[in-house]
């Protein structure tokens, strides 16, 4: 049973009056509790594909299905799906500077309608489980790069989403912190059964995935 799928996804951009076809009918199905890596050269369209799958952008053609339902980024339920079913981790942590680590992590839960006190409590527990118990009241600028990314991962996980979409999650980290984050994603996948779709150009790390795709010249091929 696949929890997320994209069929014949195409996307093109106009750059200086020139049409650039980034995705030329890409399809993939991600089964539950699987780690799927999408690799490819820089600028080949990996992030674009991830954004389409995460309902952050609309494809020119093709469709995205989440939990067997066809959805678009423009639909009224897109915000709800992004909040409850999907979790996002980006290369840049995108933490809110005016909120501390615990408050940043609690945000998706608060948006989902959970009371602030319960949301903060759960965020503290989650941060503690990710080894950040001492850092929950720190603001993003008081955290190291690895810690920032772990807080970002905690934010993606707080709502217990079925799918985590990670765009170069270790792209800004040194090798030590990078392997920590990869290890953490693997553990979460094993413990909680969440599916991970990870865009990376780190082929060595991509070997840890259950399935790997390579995107080349707009075509997605299984490796």
């Amino acid at each position, binding site marked *: 049973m696949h929890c997320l799928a994209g069929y014949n996804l195409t996307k093109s951009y106009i750059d200086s009056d020139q049409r650039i076809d980034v995705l030329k009918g890409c399809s993939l199905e991600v089964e539950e509790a699987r780690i799927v890596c999408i690799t490819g050269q820089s600028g080949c369209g990996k992030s674009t594909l991830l954004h389409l799958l995460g309902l952050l952008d609309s494809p020119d053609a093709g469709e995205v299905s989440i939990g067997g339902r066809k959805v678009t980024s423009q639909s009224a339920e897109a915000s709800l799906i992004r909040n409850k079913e999907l979790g*996002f981790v980006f290369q840049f942590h*995108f933490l809110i500077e005016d909120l501390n680590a615990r408050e940043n992590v609690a945000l998706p839960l*608060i948006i989902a309608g959970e009371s602030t006190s319960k949301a903060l409590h759960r965020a503290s527990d989650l941060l503690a489980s990710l080894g950040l118990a001492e850092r929950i009241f720190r603001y993003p600028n008081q955290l190291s790069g690895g810690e920032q990314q772990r807080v970002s991962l905690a934010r993606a996980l707080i709502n217990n989403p079925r799918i985590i979409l990670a765009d170069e999650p270790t792209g800004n980290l040194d090798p030590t912190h990078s392997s920590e984050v990869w290890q953490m994603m693997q553990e979460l996948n094993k413990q909680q059964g969440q599916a991970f779709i990870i865009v990376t150009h780190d082929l060595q790390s991509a070997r840890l995935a259950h399935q790997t795709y390579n995107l080349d010249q707009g075509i997605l091929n299984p490796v």
Partner: protein
Amino acid sequence: MDNLERFFLSRYFRSPKRNLLRFSFLFMTLGIVLSVGILSAGLNLFEGYERSLKDVLLGSLPHLSIQRSEGTYFSEAETDSLITRLHKFAFINRISPVIQYSVMSVGNSKVRGANLSAYDFSGKYPLPFSRYVQQGTSNLNSKEIIVGSYLASELGKSLGDTLKIVYPRLDRISALGMFPAEYNFRIAGIYRSGFYETDRSLLICTSTDAREILEILAGFSKLEINLRSRDADQAGKIASELQIILGEKYTVYSWTQFSAGLLRLVAMEKWLIFIIFSFLVLIAGINVISTVTTLILDKKNEIAVLKTVGSHARSIKRIFVLQTGLVSVLSIILGQLFGMLLSFLVEKQHFYKLKGDVYFIDSLKASISPVNQLVIFGAAFMIVFLCIHFPLKQIDKQQIIEILRNQ
């Protein structure tokens, strides 16, 4: 207000230093504080001027006056009978019979026209001017006079000096022409109401001395009536009602016939000042637009993140409104306090005095009216609130994907 908005609002109150006292808000806050402060100070001073003028007018001038329509004098008996009749009306506070006529006052080779008001100092009737006698006594004996402060100053006279009163009598004509009557009075009091016109022309003496000058035996030329303070504004209506009751034999005048236009003009000027100074808040509003626009650009990553994790643009806009709205409300209140301080300082300063001959009163007083403060708050809030909303459209336009891609 949804969960997320309540969450951000609680953050703003819990750590205001981090969320509200930001450097980016500094110029927006300064603009609002200064413009609202000037608006508030302007209105406080105009309100004070309006109230002072009205107080002085209503305090120094009779609210109503009754004269015989023929222009002849009231007899003592007629005066008493009329006073008894009038005292039955609850709105009447005080009735003082008076003899009034124009004279010339002479001092140090200067001659000034003056209005002589003569009252009965026997204690039978109340005296309306006592509270304005600033020097000397308000209880006169024969050949004693109270002089308006500006008149005394123009004639170079002070307390205890002798003042010559000249009354031109048409019935005393000699071969050399008209022969005016001259009388010397000792200045026993200096009168100062603050109303320039009165302080520059008023002389008060006893009715006995006045009758001697006029060569009449008894009677009064006029009844001066003071209404209860809450009825003073209704003087015009009351005068019409009394006119009907008293009939054609008497003519009833109200203060509104002579001075209400002046107060209406001042009130109109006050609101003109309000409109003009409101433009300052509008200019501060442009600063608000600029600050909110910069804030949205500055926070584009955070907006993208909130959208990514499922928040609606509507909710994000409200968070911005809450943050900038809170800062603006605090700035408006600070501005109003600054305006109060400013008007207090203007009131207490000694560098600039009003010219009584131009502005009718010579002291600048501020008055803080709750209604005016509410109007200032309401107008400033409305202008600033509109200015906050104007740039929020950008949040709708911001595409998550553009922001993520640019990172």
